[in-house]
């Protein structure tokens, strides 16, 4: 397409014009040097490490991830769905549990001490609605009727490292090579007009201003995001959200938190079949991410946190699937996590309940990521409007 070629030409021109930077200045060998420099330039504290938040939407069935396969209550409640020893790899340090073989990279990381599983996490008075529960995880507080100033990681950014690329959501950015106004005229006339209009106009109401704000963000960030992601080459062929995350991590934009999400975990029916597609997808996308970050020398300074709005019911339904439950596990991956099991192991008593209960508040896990990994004080983020939570996990999640 003729138009595209011209557009790419324009990107380069307007990028250099806007940032006043030659190409050489961007070509830092280690993107993390850039990250650290940017971070320290903005705030006095912080480790400069990268936290990747991977939200599993729909309610992740943790009993199909980390299975108490020897437990007769588990086997009895799930005649079709329970995993047997053939389906999993028994943990080297706890022979009562095994990780599903549909997750080889997680097994590998666990064996290497690079996987921490915080068991039976949740929050008080759990809500069975996806949306309510997702909101609780996103905002880090119960619904306060719109009084919460943004998602918890956005609040963290505003408090400690208030810069445009501090937190990037793969869903917001999309395909970075498309991030900008697609100009098909000569000499970037439309792109320039788009930028000027967005900057010089005032929206006549809040919603209209919100559109202009997005346009401005696209204009300000666009050239830099396109330029810095253009050279990225993955080690593999997968093109999911983790690929986007690796692309953004490689860009060296001073990003401390990358957020991504995968859906499809609401497995009320044919769960065994659904998982045959879903689990390998997550596994393969994540495995490629680990390989990409290792290839760039960035894995050492990365922690990936997996979580879901709730776990699923202990007993399978007739479909065969599982309905919405309560407690679930949070999974931390990275070379500097304290590998192994944390929280309360799933017991017979827990399995006799309808759903797994929770023993660790999810905010305690995020707070540990903020404090022990990113090096910030989590208090202003989670102890909002006088709200408190149980900060105790019982063990340290990082080494």
């Amino acid at each position: 397409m003729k138009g595209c070629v011209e557009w790419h030409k324009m990107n380069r021109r307007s990028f250099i014009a806007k940032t006043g930077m030659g190409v050489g200045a961007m070509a830092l060998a280690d993107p993390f040097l850039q990250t650290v420099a940017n971070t320290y330039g903005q705030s006095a504290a912080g480790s400069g490490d990268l936290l990747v938040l991977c939200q599993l939407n729909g309610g992740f069935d943790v009993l199909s991830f980390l299975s108490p396969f020897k437990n007769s209550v588990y086997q009895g409640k799930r005649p079709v769905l329970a995993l047997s020893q053939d389906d999993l790899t028994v943990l080297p340090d706890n022979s009562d549990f095994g990780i599903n073989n549909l997750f080889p990279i997680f097994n590998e990381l666990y064996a290497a001490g690079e996987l921490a599983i915080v068991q039976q996490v949740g929050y008080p008075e759990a809500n069975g609605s996806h949306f309510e529960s997702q909101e609780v995880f996103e905002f880090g507080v119960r619904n306060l009727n719109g009084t919460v100033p943004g998602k918890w990681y956005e609040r963290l950014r505003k408090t400690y490292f208030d810069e445009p690329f501090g937190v990037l959501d793969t869903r917001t950015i999309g395909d970075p090579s498309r991030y900008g106004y697609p100009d098909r005229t000569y000499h970037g006339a439309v792109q320039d007009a788009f930028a000027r209009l967005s900057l010089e106009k005032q929206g006549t109401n809040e919603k209209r201003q919100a559109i202009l704000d997005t346009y401005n963000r696209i204009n300000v960030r666009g050239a830099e995001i396109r330029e810095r992601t253009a050279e990225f080459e993955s080690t593999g062929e997968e093109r999911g959200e983790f690929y986007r995350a690796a692309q953004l991590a490689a860009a060296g934009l001073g990003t401390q938190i990358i957020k991504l999400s995968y859906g499809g975990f609401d497995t009320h029916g044919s769960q065994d079949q659904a998982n045959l597609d879903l689990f390998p997808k997550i596994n393969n996308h994540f495995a490629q991410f680990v390989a990409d970050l290792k290839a760039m020398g960035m894995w050492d300074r990365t922690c990936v946190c997996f979580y879901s709005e709730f776990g699923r019911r202990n007993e399978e339904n007739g479909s065969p699937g599982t309905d919405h439950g309560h407690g679930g596990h949070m999974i931390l991956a990275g070379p500097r996590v304290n590998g192994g099991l944390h929280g309360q192991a799933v017991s017979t008593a827990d399995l006799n309940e309808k759903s797994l209960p929770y023993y660790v508040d999810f905010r305690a896990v995020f707070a540990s990521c903020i404090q022990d990994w990113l090096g910030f004080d989590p208090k202003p983020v989670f102890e909002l409007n006088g709200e408190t939570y149980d900060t105790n996990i019982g063990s340290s999640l990082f080494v």
Partner: protein
Amino acid sequence: MSYTTRLLCYVAITLMTVTGCNGTDPTGGGDGNGGNGNGGGLFGGGSSGSGEGQSLAKHGDQLTSDEAYHLLRRAAFGGTPEQVEQVVQMGLTAAVEDLLEQKPVPSEWEELAELHEDNIPRRWMVYLLESPNPLHERMALFWHDRFATSRRVVSGRDRNLAVIHWNMLRDQALGNYRTFLQELTIDPLMLIWLDGANSPKDNPNENYAREFWELFTLGRDILYTEDDIKESTKAFTGITLLRESEKDARPIYDLLNHDTSVKRILPSRVEPGDYDYLGMIDLTLDQPEAARYVARNLFVAFVHDNPSDAVVNDLAQTFTDSNFEIEPVVRRILTSQAMFSTDAIGSHITSPVEHVVGVFRTIDMHMHSEDSQGYILNALCNELARAGQDLLNPPGVEGWTEGEAWLEDQWLINRFWALSRTMEFGPDRTSDLPYHMLPPVERWAEREIRGEIVDTIASWFHLVLTEEEKDIYIEVLDQNGWRAFHLLEPDQQPRHVGELIRLIAVHENVITN
């Protein structure tokens, strides 16, 4: 699928579906206690004080051109300057009746749509762009977002279930809500999507029961508890899908798998009893909260986000008075003072489909050529999917998140791309540009033409431009001064006008309406 074999052993009775319920109550019922709030200026015509944002009293019949365009954008995605003028001539009441009247769709479009078989995005797009019943399509889209269901759970032959579901949405969109819920509950795609087809009494599945209240009828955590969900799940048991070769799967009632026990559903409100799915629908609609939920949703979809309790109750009354006919509620909303109030104007952020279809309907774009009906249509649907709205494939059971959630950076960017997929324009079926709405090409060599072109395009969208804005748009035509538009080679001019149309079509006042 295990349930087909299980079925063979059981008594199965084909489900009777209720049809043809609408039309028995054609009145605009419930108008009796209409004029709530401040009863200001029944014949107020154009001007709107903010207090009218909460008034369901009838708006004056004479509309300004801006108001007529506002009505068409909200109720019909958009409209050409000619259609706007028609609405002004007709007056509000007649225009709304015209919108509500279902007209025959020209066979050209019926046939084209059918060619796309089970590709619902493309098939639906034919109607969205070309149907003479845009309000019906708009309403189908509204319900699709409320009763969100995805084609991604069906494959192979079952892909046709998406077509059946889509037809059901479009048939019921302005019909009777009770009938709609009855059809929805036994709709094959819905039965698969929310596992209703796989909920036998010995091992019931809560998925449909939960979303029936949370998303379809009452709203999150309204009235019901977790215990109520467990009880109501029993009422929905026994529905399953019968699969016969060479036929579409159809719902059947498997009596042996229906739980006939006494259910205690919403015990503070409802007598315990042996309810089935029809009983569940009836007992739910008996709760005043149900009519209010729909009334609020419809008001928000057409007017603004903050209806007062009085407005919601008043509309809910219209709804129950007409025995849950949807049309009288929509008629009342579209003809209300609130509809044209300052609270309403510009308060709605369009979805990608609403936005792009609205622009295309405004600039009189059509799909007559082979290219338009083939690869351009395909590309358009792909761009809209990348812009966040893949029809019949919403992100989850809750449908799409409306409002500011549409403003994700990449989703806006992909709207820009969708808008570049142009087809033919106007009665002359010209390619490239709607020449019939622009100043004549013979004058494009005149210097003043640049401002006229900008003004003309802005007028299609009823935008008022400042001088500074206008100058920036003129520079687009002039390529930032590299080559003045009126001096350009004629074959280069259309591209610049096309770019200008697209840039104006992403104006924040076009994305909102």
